[in-house]
């Protein structure tokens, strides 16, 4: 009986206890359900995003650079196929052994090896490391043969920059190299399209037009597993190629110009005098831009850097020289325009025994025996210094400065293309007061008249100056990148109509002149100067007579210049050494400016040979060959221009 009640009791208890436990279970199930609701319904989006972040990984593929061509569509900066090998870290169990095997097969140097280890520190464990950027076909095929033995090695066909004309264009195009932190912060387009190993322009057009050339990177989306191994490609937004760029350069002329400067230090510029298109912009010595694409090696770099002739300097735009006698046409023009002299002004050049004297200071002509009685035309033709001392004295430096600046000296010619371009210097009394805090001396005016003293110009400025004289005195805008909206015939018409416009009163004051407007006051003065330059090249006793073209087709007019690099002492004058007898660094720079063809001018050039001696001996002969080439190419250029318009 007791047992019975006890059992009843126990059953009662267990039922009550079970009920309590059951309630707790229901409560806990509710808790789990609400948790699931919370995860799967309320925060679904959050976890979906997290899941996708888990699953997908993006790889950026480098953009393809736009191609650069010359005016005739010859490719001057190309993309070529290269063979590369990557090591994919997530597929490499033993990094050291893989690298060691690679080293033996493709022959890595210790230098390269340490760079790879350096790179490895910086990248994520599922990324790939670029082991070699540019393998030869032999090594690449050898690698493919042993590929199964090297864990994680990935042979890749890629593209890289290639300059088919290697040395001939480096000063214009520049070169590319791996983007530095500086490049990335400075250029937004680079920042936006940066991928590891991206090549960007370092100097020249490659650098200044990166914006256009660079293109957009592609994105490959992969599904990956938890250890980062790619399972499959989900999507591939293909990288785009940057825009192609056409320059105004004629590769044939450029190559000739570069060849003419072989074994010399110097510059050759050639320009269309109406469109301002730069046809050639040579600078010597030069170097191979292809060496920079993968980072130049120390030996090559030292060779370039330590070369005394300074191959790294683009002498056409960053070399500063006294213009020497090439300034004389401009001095004459200024004096004529201001009505200081008339062409019939006579000055007697009596040789070194009776030099030009001013306040007791003596100024010599280059010609020992003197030129005799000179008129303006003869003085330009034979480059008489005495005559120009006198003209400059009469003119004054400030008026000369206005005209010099007007024709393109003292400011950058291309502005944005080459950051290293120099402004040069056109002195004036005001300038000297402001910068040197000294008064201007008349003696300084006198030597400025023959392009010595403070005045500093770049070869491109001299070419530009000559172009604006040769086109009849109209303002043009030099350029090196072809603009398809540019209409040549329209320009000619505009200049024609500009000619007929009345001349304003204050035309000779310092002022802004718009594109294609007149630079002169009286067109006759321009003609006088150009005619004198004709004489200089095509008549006996002209300084560049020996370099003339007899064929009418190639006839050009020019002006020589010889710029001193050091003061000529009395002793030097007595010795009267030949150029070859003087120490290289003390030899004069040889200059020459010219335009052609004389009857219907179209092109202007400037030639500079550093320490070449006299302009007539060292510079003018180069112009002879160059001008022939330019005139020969003229017809092709016109045909090509028409074709470009029709595209």
């Amino acid at each position, binding site marked *: 009986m007791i047992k019975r009640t006890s059992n009843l009791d126990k059953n009662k208890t267990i039922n009550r206890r*079970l009920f309590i*436990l059951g309630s707790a*279970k229901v409560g806990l199930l509710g808790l789990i359900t609400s*948790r699931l609701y919370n995860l*799967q319904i309320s*925060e*679904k989006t*959050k*976890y979906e995003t997290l899941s996708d972040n888990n699953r997908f990984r993006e790889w950026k593929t480098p953009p393809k650079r736009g191609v650069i061509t010359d005016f005739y569509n010859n490719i001057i900066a190309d993309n070529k196929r290269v063979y590369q090998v990557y090591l994919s870290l997530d597929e490499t169990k033993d990094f050291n052994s893989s690298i060691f095997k690679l080293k033996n097969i493709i022959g890595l140097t210790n230098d390269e090896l340490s760079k790879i280890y350096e790179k490895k520190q910086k990248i994520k464990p599922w990324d790939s490391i670029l082991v070699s950027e540019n393998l030869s076909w032999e090594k690449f095929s050898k690698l493919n043969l042993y590929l199964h033995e090297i864990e994680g090695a990935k042979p890749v066909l890629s593209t890289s920059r290639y300059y088919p004309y290697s040395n001939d264009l480096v000063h214009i195009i520049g070169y590319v190299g791996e983007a530095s932190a500086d490049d990335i912060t400075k250029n937004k387009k680079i920042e936006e399209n940066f991928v590891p190993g991206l090549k960007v322009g370092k100097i020249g057009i490659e650098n200044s037009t990166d914006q256009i050339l660079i293109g957009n990177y592609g994105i490959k989306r992969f599904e990956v597993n938890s250890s980062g191994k790619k399972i499959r490609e989900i999507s591939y937004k293909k990288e785009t190629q940057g825009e192609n760029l056409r320059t105004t350069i004629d590769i044939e002329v450029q190559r000739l110009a570069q060849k003419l400067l072989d074994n010399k230090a110097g510059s050759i510029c050639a320009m269309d005098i109406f469109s301002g298109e730069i046809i050639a912009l040579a600078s010597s010595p030069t170097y191979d831009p292809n060496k920079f694409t993968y980072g130049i090696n120390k030996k090559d770099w030292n060779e370039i850097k330590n070369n005394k002739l300074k191959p790294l300097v683009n002498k056409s735009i960053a070399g500063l020289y006294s213009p020497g006698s090439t300034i004389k046409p401009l001095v004459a023009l200024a004096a004529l325009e201001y009505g200081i002299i008339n062409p019939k002004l006579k000055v007697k050049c009596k040789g070194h025994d009776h030099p030009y004297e001013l306040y007791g200071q003596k100024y010599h002509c280059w010609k020992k025996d003197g030129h005799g009685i000179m008129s303006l035309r003869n003085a330009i033709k034979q480059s008489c210094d005495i005559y120009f001392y006198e003209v400059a004295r009469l003119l004054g430096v400030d008026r000369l400065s206005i005209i010099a600046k007007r024709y393109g000296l003292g400011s950058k010619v291309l502005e944005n293309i080459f950051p290293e371009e120099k402004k040069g210097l056109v002195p004036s009394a005001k300038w000297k007061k402001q910068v040197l805090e000294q008064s201007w001396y008349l003696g300084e005016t006198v030597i400025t008249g023959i392009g010595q003293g403070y005045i500093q110009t770049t070869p491109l400025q001299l070419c530009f100056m000559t172009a604006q004289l040769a086109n009849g005195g109209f303002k043009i805008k030099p350029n090196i990148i072809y603009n398809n909206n540019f209409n040549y015939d329209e320009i000619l018409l505009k200049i024609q109509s500009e000619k007929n416009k009345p001349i304003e009163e204050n035309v000779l004051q310092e002022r802004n002149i718009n594109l294609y407007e007149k630079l002169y006051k009286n067109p006759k003065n321009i003609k006088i100067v150009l005619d004198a330059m004709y004489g200089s090249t095509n008549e006996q006793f002209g300084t560049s007579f020996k370099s003339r073209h007899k064929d009418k087709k190639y006839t050009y007019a020019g002006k020589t210049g010889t710029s001193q690099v050091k003061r000529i002492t009395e002793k030097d004058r007595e010795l009267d050494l030949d150029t070859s007898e003087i120490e290289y660094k003390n030899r004069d720079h040889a200059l020459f400016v010219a335009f052609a063809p004389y009857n219907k001018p179209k092109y202007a050039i400037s030639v500079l040979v550093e320490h070449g001696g006299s302009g007539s001996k060292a510079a003018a002969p180069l112009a002879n060959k160059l001008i022939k080439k330019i005139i020969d190419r003229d017809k092709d250029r016109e045909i090509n221009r028409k074709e470009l318009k029709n595209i």
Partner: protein
Amino acid sequence: MISSTLNSLNYSFFDKLKSVDYFLILLVFLIGAVSVFSIYSTESGEFSFYTKNHLIRLVAFFLLFLALSFVRVSTWYRQAYIFYLFGLLLLLLVIFFGVSASGSKRWINLFVFNLQPSELMKIAIIVSFARYYHRIQSADIESYKYLLQPIILLLIPCYLVIKQPDLGTAILIAGSGIAIIWLAGLNIKYFIYSGLIALVSLPFLISILKPYQKSRILTFFNPERDPLGAGYQIIQSKIAIGSGGMYGKGFLKGTQSYLEFLPEKHTDFIFTLFSEEFGFLGSILLIFLYALLIFRIIKIGFSCRSFFAKLYCFGFSSALFLYVFVNIAMVVGLLPIVGAPLPIMSYGGSSMLSIMIGLSIVMSCKIYSKEIVSN
């Protein structure tokens, strides 16, 4: 003695078949089927190693469950302590002859498969406790003599299992035992007191935990503490479940598990995989199946005449609930990751074996519900 023998003789084979709980079998079969598809999905839809093994075990143990169902409940009652001692013996054998894997020694090599004695202990503790309280008068329950015995019976296996180390199973064993003591009617104040003592001694308990166990518990409170280490599992599990959404990503389309972000997807995290592929609705359905199973066992318990059978059924249902709850609460981030399989669903022979044995005793209680047990 005589009455019991007489009692048992009353059952004809037909009677036995008639009293088999077919609904229970259906539920076990359904959950078993879901488990096969889930394991199949962990192998990205390939019928290979895990799926094959799981299927073979499921079929074998399911048949074992049916066969053992016809063992008299009185036999279970009589052999309860033997079962317990057998389990204890195996746990001791583990110490000397155990197979080690990933830093813990839990298994005995049986050549066919590795047996995890702690899993058998989960059932043995329920059976032996049910027998223990079957005998005791309710008035005696609170006497120290009768109070101390079950505590010792519980502490020995728990200690051995913690030492393996296997905190999860130890907690489940302890939890099942406590549930039975509760059901047997021990005064509520003991539970409150021991709860308080446990709380006070918590710092001490934590100090004796293994470093990885400590880190798991710390990580539970802040999974972002170490997202690639200890927090990784729970973060990835939550991502998988959360991204499943209402309807799931679809069968075999769970990216988290397919792409191997999900750790231990065959075993402890099988619910995560299921939930990722079948979403909120699927998960609720699966939980509902488990709830039905538990409810069915309780119902069987009510129909039993003997206190032993009743206590066993209620106890086993509570234990089953505990297993399911701990596992799911763990993978959804409500509890620390302690390592507890989901009954039937998780890959693993011992867990499956113990559940099937447990279920067969339930079935035996049903078939022999009129039987009065005694020794």
